[in-house]
């Protein structure tokens, strides 16, 4: 059976994996496996913007994915962007295997506030559910508490629940119960 592979890009604290594995086990009927960490690809760094091009990370993930990877999720601490946008919390291929989540702007410290581990855990889980949802074909949801709602600001992330709304959830279930497993 195809698996969901998790991989660190650069250094990622160990506890992060526990959060993600728990959430993945709750929502997706795929075995979750860890891959050895990858270095941040050269050429991804944009010196002028002091950020990393998300597309470069995704390209690398696509290349590194094992043949049985139904999905591959990269997690990184670096700040991601695309040429058009000043930052991204994460990015995914819509209905494709690759997703990436940046923890950088999920830390309270990024906003000059004291660290809050539980808040970081919640935000991480929400962002993982969001990007993984895209890989399973879900688009943005109008319900602000749904993990699939579009967050362009950290407050929007905090307004979400650590779950999909019933409609998006149902869409996922339908996909997983389809004949081909939808994965």
């Amino acid at each position, binding site marked *: 059976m195809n698996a969901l592979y998790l991989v660190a890009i650069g250094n990622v604290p160990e506890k992060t994996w526990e959060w993600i594995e728990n959430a993945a086990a709750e929502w997706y009927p795929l075995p979750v496996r860890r891959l050895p960490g990858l270095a941040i690809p050269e050429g991804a760094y944009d010196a002028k913007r002091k950020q990393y091009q998300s597309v470069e990370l995704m390209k690398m993930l696509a290349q590194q994915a094992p043949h049985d990877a139904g999905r591959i999720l990269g997690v990184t601490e670096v700040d991601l962007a695309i040429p*058009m946008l000043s930052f991204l919390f994460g990015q995914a291929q819509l209905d494709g295997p690759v997703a990436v989540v940046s923890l950088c702007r999920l830390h309270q410290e990024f906003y000059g506030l004291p660290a809050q581990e539980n808040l970081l855990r919640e935000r991480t889980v929400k962002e993982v559910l969001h990007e993984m949802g895209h890989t399973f074909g879900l688009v943005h949801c109008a319900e602000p508490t749904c993990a699939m709602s579009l967050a362009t600001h950290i407050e929007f992330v905090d307004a979400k629940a650590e779950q999909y709304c019933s409609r998006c959830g149902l869409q996922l279930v339908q996909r997983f119960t389809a004949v081909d497993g939808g994965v």
Partner: protein
Amino acid sequence: MKKNWPILVVDDEDVMCESMAAWLREDGYSVDTAPDGKKAVELAKSSDYAICFVDLKMPGGMDGIETMMEIHRVRREASVIIITAYATVDTAIQAMKEGAQEYIVKPCNPQEISMLVSRILKLKKLQSENAILRKKLTRQYRHHDIITKNPRMEEILALTQDIASLRSTVLIRGESGTGKELVARAVHFSGNRAEKPFIVVSCAALTETLLESELFGYEKGAFTGAAAQVKGKFELADGGTIFLDEIGDISPKLQADLLRVLQERRFYRVGGNQEVEVEVRIIAATNKNLAEEVQQGRFREDLYYRLNVIEIRLPALRERREDIPLLAEHFVQRIASELGREISGISAAALKVLIAYDWPGNVRELENVIERAIVTCRNGTLEEQDFSWLRQNSGPQQDWEVPDVSLDELERRAIITALERKHGNVKEASASLGIDRSTLYDKLKRYEIVH
């Protein structure tokens, strides 16, 4: 829903195109990408893009502004958003001047893009709703509330279709309430001006000075209270049709002004010294006999001939009595549903009353009469008694058969009836008979009528 609003991203940098497309796809949009202007225009030919993000600087071939102009040539409605890495006021102004909807500097905040896209699409939705409503309106006026099986009216309707796309001036004559405005609308909405404005001006409703500024607009300071420049109806109707109702009532000065507009399609705003040029079709209407007004010297002959290029004379309702049942049924259905009354129809006896009546106010009067009957009606069908008040008011012609008597006898009876109706008042009776009081006295003497 979002799939109905496809988006195109044009940039020579593949990363820029693909990452932007991916981001928008996550939001549910269907997105295409093009690496240069040429490919973008090619795509735009086959796909109706709602929004095109176009990079300003693309090496070789077309730059962003040229690309935008080409896209607009094939997709007039597409909103183009120009993207650039560095903003200068000059490029922004140029982009907006050439028709860009927005101008954004990359990288921009994701929130900015989301808001921009949803704002533009909100506008698009309103525009498309507007277009649908316009279409509905057009359908409504295609054959258009004009309900008839009268051959003459059918001929007129056919004529409205034939002349719909011409620019020729039309003069519609007919008693009030015969549907002159409806015919004017039918002409406008059947032709190639249907998408353009149809502006109605009732010439009789306004004084000369008011009408002048209403028609031609005025400049700021043209008179006390003219705080800003205001466009007149002629300018508002540009590209479309202006309907001048009650044209027979305008003053000699306005007749002269109007003649100039008809001849030259140009005019001055009140208090203005700059000519305004318009492309407007004129449809005029009157309940007067303009030829007679010309003879009497009340209406300019040259203006009359300018207006009377295509003449439509609408028959009075009493000249098309066969339409009365159709119209009555139509009004019952429409008005009952508007007023929320459950009325199933009109009884045969009631219809007879309606057919017999003379309708000096024509179709408009019929409509008002039906409305009044619906309001006062006690049961589900309009009966004879719902129109009894109409019978009292109606003229002597109804149900009138010429008795087999001499003309003198006929006159004698007419005089007696008139006197009875006016309770012996000779002044009123003579007026209703259309003769002098002295003539009536002579006739009373002659027929030995005692009153």
